């Protein structure tokens, strides 16, 4: 598997890199560290200056070299400088060129309106990426890069048709040699959500568990549970989270009907999640093949 880290020399970039390194500890994995600079194609009223551009290039190379020092010896790693009109676009181009299986970015932006946990970059990716996107929460870097991924939690939702997400979870857990946990998140105060829904969710989780058990290779542990609360946030809070785990969520699978706004659900989860979140696009199955 090839992991692409969207890097900036900021705390958020360090978060992304830390998560990328941990993911890339899986056997046979490769890591690409990509730094996106503004492309010359972009319209500016400020005249471009070759001297400044050159200095910027040198600085960016310095940043990438610094990033490399955080990568443990022996890991297969490449750095790339990409020029694009936006960070999002640059990452998508690089991901396509490098045949990446996953894009990792730092999720936290604490700007003036800093209570939103998902920045414009993450949001742009979540609405356009053909490959899964991992959001490293603020502070991921503090944990370091030594731990591998211990458990993969798949938020499968109660709607049918989560097979794609499930397949991604299974594949990732196998790759990482991690446990797999299947979770149904149920928000009680949503219209139409009641005891019956919770029961349905439990049934569904059981069905999913059976499916996963059948499809797992030997030696992998798989569990299933239902998490409920008055809101998605509370349901997420109610679960126990292992520091070394990652959460998988399908893009739009979790939402209730007519609540398909991906960003808001992902943001809700992310705000509560103490662990990285990986958002898997609907048609990811094409890209998860190695």
């Amino acid at each position: 598997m090839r992991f692409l880290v969207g890097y900036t020399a900021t705390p958020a970039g360090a978060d992304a890199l830390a998560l990328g390194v941990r993911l890339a500890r899986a056997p046979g994995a490769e890591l690409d560290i990509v730094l996106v600079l503004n492309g010359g194609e972009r319209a500016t009223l400020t005249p471009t200056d070759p001297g400044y551009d050159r200095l910027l290039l040198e600085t960016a190379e310095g940043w990438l070299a610094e990033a490399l020092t955080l990568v443990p010896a022996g890991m297969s790693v490449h750095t790339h400088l990409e020029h694009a009109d936006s960070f999002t676009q640059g990452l998508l181009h690089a991901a396509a060129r490098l045949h990446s299986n996953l894009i990792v970015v730092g999720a936290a932006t604490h700007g003036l309106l800093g209570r939103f946990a998902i920045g414009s970059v993450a949001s742009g990716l979540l609405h356009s990426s053909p490959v899964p996107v991992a959001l490293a929460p603020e502070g991921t870097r503090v944990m370091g890069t030594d731990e591998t991924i211990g458990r993969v939690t798949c938020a499968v939702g109660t709607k049918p048709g989560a097979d794609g997400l499930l397949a991604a979870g299974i594949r990732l857990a196998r790759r990482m040699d991690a446990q797999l946990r299947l979770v149904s998140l149920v928000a009680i105060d949503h219209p139409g959500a009641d005891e019956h829904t919770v029961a349905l969710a439990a049934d569904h989780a059981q069905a999913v568990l059976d499916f996963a058990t059948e499809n797992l290779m030997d030696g992998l542990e798989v569990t299933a549970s239902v998490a409920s609360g008055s809101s998605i946030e509370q349901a997420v809070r109610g679960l126990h989270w292992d520091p070394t785990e990652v959460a998988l969520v399908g893009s739009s699978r979790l939402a209730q009907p007519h609540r398909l706004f991906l960003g808001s659900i992902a943001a809700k989860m992310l705000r509560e999640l103490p662990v990285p979140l990986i958002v898997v696009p609907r048609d990811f199955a094409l890209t998860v093949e190695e």
Partner: protein
Amino acid sequence: MTQQINARVVVDQKAGGISTKGLSAGSVGLVGAVIIGISCIAPAYTLTGALGPTVAEVGLQLPAIFVAGFIPMLLVALGYRELNKAMPDSGTSFTWATRAFGPWIGWMAGWGLIAATVVVLSNLAGIAVDFFYLMLSQIFGNSAEIAGLAGNPFINVGTCLVFILIATWISYRDMQTTQKVQYWLVGFQLIVLVGFGIMAFVHIANGSAFDPTPVSLSWFNPFAVTSFSAFAAGLSLSIFIFWGWDVTLTMSEETKGSRSTPGRAATLTVIIVMVLYLFVAIAAVSFAGVGGVGVGLGNPEIQGNVFFALAGPALGPFAVLMSIAVLSSSAASLQSTFVSPARTLLAMGHYGALPPAYAKVSPRFFTPGYATIASAVVAAGFYTIMRFVSEDVLWDTITTLGMMICFYYALTAFACVWYFRLQWFATVRNAFFTFVFPLIGGIILTVLFCTTLVDSMDPNYGSGSEIFGLGLVFVLGMAILLIGVVIMIVQSQVRPAFFRGETLSLAAPRYGEE
């Protein structure tokens, strides 16, 4: 292992296509280059700021001075282009003068550039404030009260600081408008200025002009200017009106299409701007005359910002368009001007001529963040002090600015001559572009600088503001240069490496050498 990884990084980046996509390779077409050029010159802002002070010096010979002012600008810009080709560096004048003349002169050249741009930033913001309140009053039914708010120093300074803050924010985050918006901004500016000229002539034809003055050939005769002092002062002001044009020449590597595109862009830009300047200048003088009362261009009350006074009488109900044009022109110019001091400060930090903090590049926005904020703070402080010290802050800042431009442009021109001294006569082209042109340009600017400096000692110079019996412009110019010298000496004690030539060395390449 780390070394292996690093080695691979280098290979990867070569293969990663930096050279093809990102930087130098074709990005700006002919129209784009012309748009950037005009936007940097900012004709609406420049004219409103420079028309009055120039008329004060040369009277009716305004058109002649505008044409003459272009000559030294062109000569220096040609040298600038040679240096930029040989040593592309974000420090521009600072780096080049250091390479040619050593750290001390190089430092002062950088200082001159920073001072000039900081002064123009404060002037730009000041003009924007005037027009902001004028626009508000025009929108709310020509209430003189609102327009008068700009005259209250506290409101004025407060608004100005807000404008500078916004401009800094935009520069720091490197926010850019789309190409379409840029075309509209520049196009609108040109249309309004042409409209102003046409309306002025319509008023003259109808007999409703303020002080109809028949156009005469003598307006184009620079020798009709009464004294050399006036001529020199007018010239240094008209260098300001073309300031920014040189970027079209140095965008050479970025323009796409044939190799002749940059030259064509620069030529086209200067033709458009020159025609526009002459047309508007002639229209303004014909319409309002150079008398000292009312909206006459000789009236010291309006000279710092003439369109502020002329827009109403000439454009009538459409005067608000002029306010919008000048405001948008100032905004675009603020944005492109902010880049200059920030990049030079960055280079000075980078080479150890200033504290290393100035060399910081924002890892999120890829702008010289610290240097940008530092320039903004200084520009804001400068404007605040000037607003309370000067009788006519806009006028005095423009005159000081002209002097500062002469100072660092002259140093840059001489740096070109001296840097290329071993290859002057290698080719005929070199003889002109690295020797004759920049040398003449440098000498003209030096003469202008000295003349302005000496004349401005007179307390009646410029707007007539004075300190200790000396003209404010003189005091300002000297203070700025002396502060530069003091900071330089302090830096030479704190950070001697640069001043020993360890970070940027002297050089004089032979023909064909790098």
